[in-house]
């Protein structure tokens, strides 16, 4: 791949006291592609993401953003670079409507008062750019939305912020079949618009459906970065469970 990675991690290390959670991670994410981040519980997925979003900075290692070395020490810096995280619990205010939620903390003002019409217009455009048709009105309260619709609003919010990298934390975990389908389509369209998407997931069928690359973490090491088209379900599972790395007794990095 000749393209510059949106995110390139080299030798990233993080420990909590005596526990080494990330033991020298190398990881690349490319614009326009969906990269799955998979691994069993405790593999270090959340810690890796928290470092990128600035919630818990890494102890050591190089983080490159479109080729430039950057320091991310707090969420504000990550947001300024264009890295947005959609958390599993979505962080929406149920008592506010879709537009209000999408602009929360970034309200547009005109002569000191809220510029409602401009915000409504931009929110509508962001939802339309993702071909969202499932919401009835952009002025609906979030409390009246389904799980899939809420996920849609949370993802559209990152579009609104013109994010270059969007990190999705188990976006389909709590959804039914139809809604999962909708959200996966949304993720695909988000990547097709040129955004680099990282998707944490436990559901391999979702991963194979939508992701271009699969990165597997095992006990704090990046044991594989595979292209979805060149791997199989069984191979990924063998990496996740550690069988593969024990066979070779070495860390393999493929693809990318």
């Amino acid at each position, binding site marked *: 791949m000749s393209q510059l990675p949106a995110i390139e991690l080299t030798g990233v290390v993080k420990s909590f006291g005596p526990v080494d959670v990330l033991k020298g991670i190398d990881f690349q994410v490319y614009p326009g592609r969906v990269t799955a981040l998979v691994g069993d519980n405790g593999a270090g997925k959340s810690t890796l993401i928290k470092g990128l979003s600035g919630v818990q900075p890494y102890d050591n290692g190089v983080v490159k953003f479109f080729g430039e070395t950057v320091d991310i020490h707090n969420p504000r810096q990550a947001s300024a670079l264009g890295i947005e995280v959609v958390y599993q619990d979505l962080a929406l*205010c*149920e*008592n506010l409507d879709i537009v209000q939620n999408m602009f929360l903390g970034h309200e547009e003002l005109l002569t000191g008062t809220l510029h409602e019409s401009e915000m409504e*217009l931009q929110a509508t455009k962001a939802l339309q750019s993702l071909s969202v*048709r499932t919401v009835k009105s952009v002025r609906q309260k979030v409390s009246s939305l389904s799980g899939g619709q809420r996920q849609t609003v949370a993802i559209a919010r990152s579009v609104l912020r013109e994010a270059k990298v969007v990190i999705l934390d188990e976006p389909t975990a709590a959804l039914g079949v139809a809604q999962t389908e909708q959200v996966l389509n949304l993720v695909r369209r988000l990547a097709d618009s040129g955004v680099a998407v990282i998707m944490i997931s436990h559901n391999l069928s979702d991963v194979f459906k939508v992701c271009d690359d699969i990165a597997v973490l095992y006990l704090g090491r990046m044991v594989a970065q595979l292209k979805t088209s060149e791997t199989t379900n069984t191979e990924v599972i063998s990496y996740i469970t550690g069988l593969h790395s024990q066979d070779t007794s070495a860390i393999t990095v493929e693809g990318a």
Partner: protein
Amino acid sequence: MSNQVTSLASGHEGTLRDQFSQYIQRLKGGEMGSLPAIGATIVLAVIFGFSSPFFFTKLNFTNMFVQAAELTMLSSALVFVILLAEIDLSAGVTAGVSMAVFIVLIKSFAWAWVPALLAAFLTGLLIGWVIGFIVAKVGVPSFVVTLAFFLGFQGMQLVLLGEGGVYRIEVPEILAIMNNNLSAWGGWLMIAVCAVVMLALGYWDRGRRARSGLVNRPIAILYIKVAALLLIGGFAVWFMNLDRSQGVIPIMGVPIVVPFTIAILFIGSFVLDRTKFGRHLYAVGGNPEAARRAGIKVARIRIYAFMICAFLAVISGVFHSSRIGNVDGSAGHTIVLSGVAAAVVGGVSLFGGRGKLAHAAIGALVITMIDNGLGLLQMSAGVNFLVEGGVLLFAATLDALARKRSGGPLAR
């Protein structure tokens, strides 16, 4: 829904009839707002109107507005903290202490009334800041903090005023608020200003939407609202402009406190609905964690809310002192629970994030009507408390049920 570019609605589309059915839909969805309270005022008016010949007299009608003003101010104050799912049990005594500061500065230190009043407001703001700081930064539940202040400030009032101390207010400007009336044309001017402001804001919003290329609601809705305001307000002004005196000297006109209250409610509503601070206040009330992640400084919003609450409570204290003409050591001890009741009855949710100042005002009117009506029927104070308690319980239950219906979790 079609595939065209404008496939996402905003709720502004459609004819008058569509808008009306949307409104009905929202009601069915549990967003009843103050509708139950408005219903209650009508029911109460009918009941008391039939059972007491005095209820609908010109004097009593006007008196009710004056009585309600005090409670409206206090329940409006409480709205700012209830929106955060917090409570301020000390709002009444905060007003009491601030008014004690006011009168002591005048009587013992010979201050002029304007700086003394400023000092009273500063006292309120300081108390609000301290409460907010302890709640937001230290993390003590507001119920406990304000309960402690509620007890402590009763002592503070006694210390400032002396045991059994009652000081007469001899400031005509303060006494005028509750006891003097606008001239007849003053009342008409008040209604005209209200209508013009309502129209202007309506046109302002429509203009902004039009410039952004967005659909507007049928303009008839705005005209209907303004017409309703002119009709109801006009009737009230006309009625209050009649001579309501039972003696020789005529008493007529809209009490001065009415335009005061309307102006404060307007400013407060403007802040809540149209500023960044207001939006953030609702967000923190709805989901503090989401607000924090969106970059909102949650602690700062909480502290400001308690300061605004204390400030408006002091205004309620000024109204109270103006009405009874003195400051005593027991002022503000009982009104705070009526204030909470008024807010909840009006449709402000105790779970946070839902409610408006107008709801508090309507709730205050309901509580005042109960108070006034039962008084006219010469019921004992016991019955009065029982009824008010029952109404509060009923309103809180409605709130919880509506919340269940709108899909939110029952408790957070």
